[in-house]
């Protein structure tokens, strides 16, 4: 339904396909993942059909362990508990996350700072917003509770990788090591990977600041830095992302046959 970003035709795949494939390869078999709407859903479904068939997928409205047949439109859609092991409740799955059962949280994001804090609430002043966005939904919960949170952002730019967010909806590292625990969040969680249209990022162990891990094909370090207000740490050994395979692209089309997320 959304307009799909322009992609150099020479690459033979779309940006959304690339993001979904990269994201799916980060998911591990025999682990649990709390999945948000859109690209995180497709990526999780792709992982379940390829590298991680026994991965436990959980949706915030109560779908537990589904074999998702086609892309759900909502995280509460009946597809989110198709052939599931349980159709339970938000209290059940949010409690499971708070109690430590969920390894990965997987979300989209509108804007992020260097510590992986996320804004999905307002642009401008909260009381008199320039633009009102939907708010936390389950994002604050997922970002608070999951051991490792991953984000997909297709529009990295100086307006979305920001020095100071207009509003911190969902916690990343909140300014550095130990800050999450000081704020009363469960110890040992936090953002783990960020996937944008330019590359894949992690977080520096010592400072909890964003660090570049790999560049997508054809992207340079300069471009990564030019599309961020804050400085991105660049280690000496940055790899290049593997492009989507023909198999992955075929499966993606089976997952989203009408192009809801992938586009036509």
């Amino acid at each position, binding site marked *: 339904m959304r307009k799909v970003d322009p992609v150099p035709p020479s690459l033979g795949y779309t940006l959304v396909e690339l993001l979904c494939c990269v994201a799916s390869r980060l998911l591990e078999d025999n682990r649990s993942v709390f999945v948000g709407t859109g690209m995180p859903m497709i990526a999780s479904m792709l992982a379940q059909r390829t590298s991680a068939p026994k991965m436990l997928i959980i949706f915030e409205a109560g779908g537990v362990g589904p074999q998702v047949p086609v892309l759900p439109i909502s995280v509460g859609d009946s597809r989110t508990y198709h052939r599931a092991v349980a159709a339970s409740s938000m209290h059940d799955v949010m409690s499971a996350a708070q109690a430590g059962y969920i390894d990965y949280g997987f979300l989209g994001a509108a804007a992020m700072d260097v510590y992986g804090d996320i804004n999905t609430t307002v642009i401008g002043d909260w009381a008199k917003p320039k633009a009102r966005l939907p708010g*936390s939904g389950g994002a*604050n919960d997922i970002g608070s509770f999951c051991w490792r949170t991953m984000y997909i952002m297709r529009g990295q730019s100086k307006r979305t990788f920001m020095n100071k967010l207009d509003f911190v909806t969902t916690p990343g590292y909140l300014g550095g090591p130990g800050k999450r625990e000081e704020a*009363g969040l469960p110890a040992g969680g936090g953002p783990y990977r960020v996937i944008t249209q330019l590359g894949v990022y992690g977080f520096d162990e010592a400072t909890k600041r964003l660090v570049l891990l790999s560049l997508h094909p054809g992207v340079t370090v300069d471009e990564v830095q030019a599309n961020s207000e804050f400085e991105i740490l660049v280690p000496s050994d940055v790899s290049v992302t593997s492009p989507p395979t023909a198999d992955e692209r075929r499966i993606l089309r089976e997952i989203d046959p009408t192009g809801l997320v992938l586009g036509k």
Partner: protein
Amino acid sequence: MTKSMEILREGNGELLGWHDPDENRAWVREHKPRGLIDKRMSVAQAVGNFVRDGDYIAFGGFGHIRIPMSLVYEIIRQGRRDLAIAGKTAVHDIDLLIGAGCVSRVECAYAFGHELRGLSPSGRRAVESGQVKVVAELSNAGYQWRFLAGMMGVPFIAVRNLGGTDTFEKSSAKQVRDPWSGKPVTLLPAAYPDVALFHVPRCDKYGNAQIDGILVEDFELARAARRVIVTAEQIIDEEQTRRDPRQTAIPFYVVDAVCEVPFGAHPTQMPYLYYFDEPHIRGWLEQSKTEAGAKEYFDKYVFGVKDFNEYLEKVGGAKLFERLKQIEQLQPLSSDDVEGRE
């Protein structure tokens, strides 16, 4: 003076729907009948009896799933004003109520957006112009647990989300030191909405309601709210309730009104029965881009029909619901079903 707990931090969001637990117990004792009473009535009567101007209301279901739309339309038809809505992931319901001018305040976990379908023109316009005020922020689990505390009859519940964020700063939560671990812990105040409204597949005349698929937070919300209206695809016999009591998600003693409304979730999804009516939802999103367009929508689908049956005929009748049933039961989607019929 009694010694009180040291508050480390507190959000400055407006506290909606809270009552002293003893006051609420007394209210429940006085107002919630424990006898088996036939509570069947029309949608117009249910809204007329139990939804008042200025109420803090919450809808069951989730986003576009299992939303009691006949009640949403009836609230608009009866011209309720100044409602405060629980944005507990409230999407289509809140969007229409805002578009029709029924809402003045929102406590927002998720609203003003339609997930994959994009942002909500009507909801955003109202907030950005100041017509509707977001009085507090929260998260989905935060709402869930405010209702859990309400259901339990305790004043608050201790949780471990929200800390460190502006979502906390704009919420009605507080942080204290956990007397056992010594760590900061977030306390969410109980929420007792004035009215909670649900659509379920089956309910008996007393209000014993069954839900298929995920419960979302209906279990807790129904038990926390002061007044509960249930619309059902089908009214079932008491015998059917008693044959398999494990099916009862909402028990009769929390329910005030029961209305039989087949297809009462349209255009939202009713699990196992019918899928989202995507073209209809897209039509609303398109029309609500302007206030005039939203008004046309309400003139056609709310004020221009005498009841929900006439509405169902207008949106496509039996033929439409046959198709939506096929889609719900996983016959392949065509792009026509997603993008629009025209």
